[in-house]
């Protein structure tokens, strides 16, 4: 076991898969000579050369076209979006092309590519660099959407993504990138631990119970899983036992695990970093209502971010997304407290 930061887990997954499979290459802005905007591909250009670590112009449509075409032709591209917000520039390539190609050509082609990059709220990056746009991808058949919360899942899910035969959107939590292992382990012992085995992977569509509990189920993904764990710590001090379920992947979505938990706790809080309206928390709440209504002792609670573009001012930014305290309040509400 190694204790890694989230960003180190990304580097480790990319490097191991590039060593294992020479069809894998990385393309993106500043991934090579600049050593990666956030350093995750530092040293890659020197190690793998310019055909496998491709510095691109600021042309997201071109980057994704490069990925889609080469994937159809049998390579396994990893397209880096410097920020997932920038994928919006090339949304057509993702939605109208990558996601559709297998189906509309009757299965004649596959598109084994990864589109990855930092996502979600950062630190004072404001409206155009802080969005968590997973809903826009998870709504579309043909895509897979991965949102890891822990360094181990970041590594294991990214490796699975790179071995998958479909277009996979890997949305990395910028806010977790450089969180120190000590800080993570203080939230939950062992949270920063990543297996050393190069064959370690994490399958898609299998949610993870990170903390067992009996009174209420807290359901999150990405940064919100960490917030749920913090909330569970606070609730424990008040004698409330919260179970934390990390969804890991939104598409495919594992509802069996959260529903099994709800059958035990009879209460659920679903947490999403940003806009709740028509969001993932809404979808999960609806599925709980359809499949576990009679197991519930209280209405499902949603905790979501403010329905505003991300503000710049630090104090406003800090109150724009769910805090552990917001989750604690929602959990208590399900318990009538």
């Amino acid at each position, binding site marked *: 076991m190694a204790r890694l930061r989230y960003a180190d887990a990304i580097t480790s997954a990319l490097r191991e898969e590039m060593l294992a499979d020479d069809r894998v290459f990385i393309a993106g802005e500043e991934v090579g000579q600049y050593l990666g905007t956030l350093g995750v591909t530092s040293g890659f250009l020197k190690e793998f050369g310019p055909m496998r670590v491709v510095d691109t112009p600021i042309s997201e449509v071109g980057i994704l*076209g490069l990925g889609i*075409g080469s994937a159809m032709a049998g390579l396994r591209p990893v397209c880096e979006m410097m920020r997932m917000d920038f994928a919006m520039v090339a949304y*057509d390539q993702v939605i109208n092309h990558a996601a559709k190609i297998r189906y509309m*050509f009757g299965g004649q082609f596959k598109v*084994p590519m990864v589109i990855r990059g930092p996502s979600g709220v950062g630190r004072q990056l404001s409206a155009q660099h802080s969005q968590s746009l997973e809903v826009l991808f998870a709504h579309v058949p043909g895509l897979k959407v991965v949102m890891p919360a822990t360094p181990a899942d970041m590594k294991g899910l990214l490796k699975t993504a790179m071995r998958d035969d479909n277009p996979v959107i890997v949305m990395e939590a910028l806010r977790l990138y450089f969180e120190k292992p000590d800080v993570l382990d203080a939230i939950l012992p062992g949270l920063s631990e990543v297996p050393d085995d190069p064959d370690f992977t994490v399958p898609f569509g299998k949610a993870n119970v990170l903390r067992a509990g009996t009174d209420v189920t807290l359901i999150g993904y990405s940064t919100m899983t960490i917030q749920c764990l913090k909330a569970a710590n606070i609730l424990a001090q008040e004698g409330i036992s919260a179970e934390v379920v990390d969804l890991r992947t939104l598409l495919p979505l594992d509802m069996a695990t959260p529903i099994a938990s709800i059958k035990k706790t009879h209460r659920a809080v679903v947490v999403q970093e940003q806009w709740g309206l028509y969001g993932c928390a809404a979808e999960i709440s609806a599925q709980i209502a359809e499949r576990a209504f009679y197991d519930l002792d209280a209405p499902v609670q949603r905790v979501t971010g403010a329905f505003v573009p991300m503000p710049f001012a630090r104090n406003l930014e800090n109150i724009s997304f769910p805090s552990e305290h917001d989750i604690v309040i929602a959990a208590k509400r399900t318990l009538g407290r």
Partner: protein
Amino acid sequence: MAKKPTLDLTKYVRFYEQMVYIREFEELIGKEWNNAAAHGMGGYMHLYSGEEAIAVGLIGGMDLAAGDCFIGHYRDHGYALAAGSDPGEVMAEICGKATGCSKGKGGSMHICDAARGFYGGYGIVGGNVPIALGLGWALKYRNQKNVCACFFGDGSMNQGAFHETLNMAQLYKVPVIFALENNGYAMGTSIERSHANQNLRSRVDSFAMRSVTINGQDIFEVHEQMAQIIQEMKEDPHPVFVEFKTYRYHGHGAADTPVTQSTYRTRDEVARAKDQLDPIKFAQEKLLELGVLTDELIADMQARAYASAEAAMKFSDDSPYPDPSELIKDVYA
């Protein structure tokens, strides 16, 4: 061109025949459109009549069996036929049948043939162009001595995707032929009304990319020039932009009726093009002049082409619609 002693006339007779096959295929669809629902046809229908020499001459210059490949847009029936795809499977796709090349899930706009290097027809104007960059990149990545051709129309050149792609293609020296089929109209909008600079070829000069303009109605010019360019691209990988000047006989799609067409072009203009710019007529006259075609041979080819199109339609008509279980298949690999 007749003075060139190296011209492989047997090949051009074959090209002529292919053009006739495509024309008869498209014209049969045009005719049967009146009875579309009975065949399973619907939605959009973009016919290639008038532009045949481009697909036949260019695809005919590639070695698909050895790994050359191509990608198209939604006016895509002709590409598949030029590549040798089974006409029955193409027609069945156009009619949404289970035996179609895309299992009836793509329709007219999404014909493909992976075995022949046809990476498909796409419905978003300009959206296929970035994918060609990736196809070319894969050839270069594997050090293959191959080329990829990307067909698109003049409308695509006003999409940002086109400009991002050409810049990167030249930057990375990928072996992609960017084949502009300039038929003068992006749906109902003429070049004059949509391009600030109407010299379309000059628009790519800013990328420092090799470019050439070819009369897309002249199969001899299309093929001789493309064969030479492809050979050079295989020796030294680089992209090339080719402007094929051409003309489409039918409306943009089936919904572009004579009435809607009257908003952007006259019947006289279409009649003049059919009379003076027809690629089949042009090839026919040359080949007759060169003595390798006879009126008898022409009549025979046309009869066989018509019969082939009819047989394709019959194959489609006799084919079942996709099983309902197909609805949810092939979303993921």
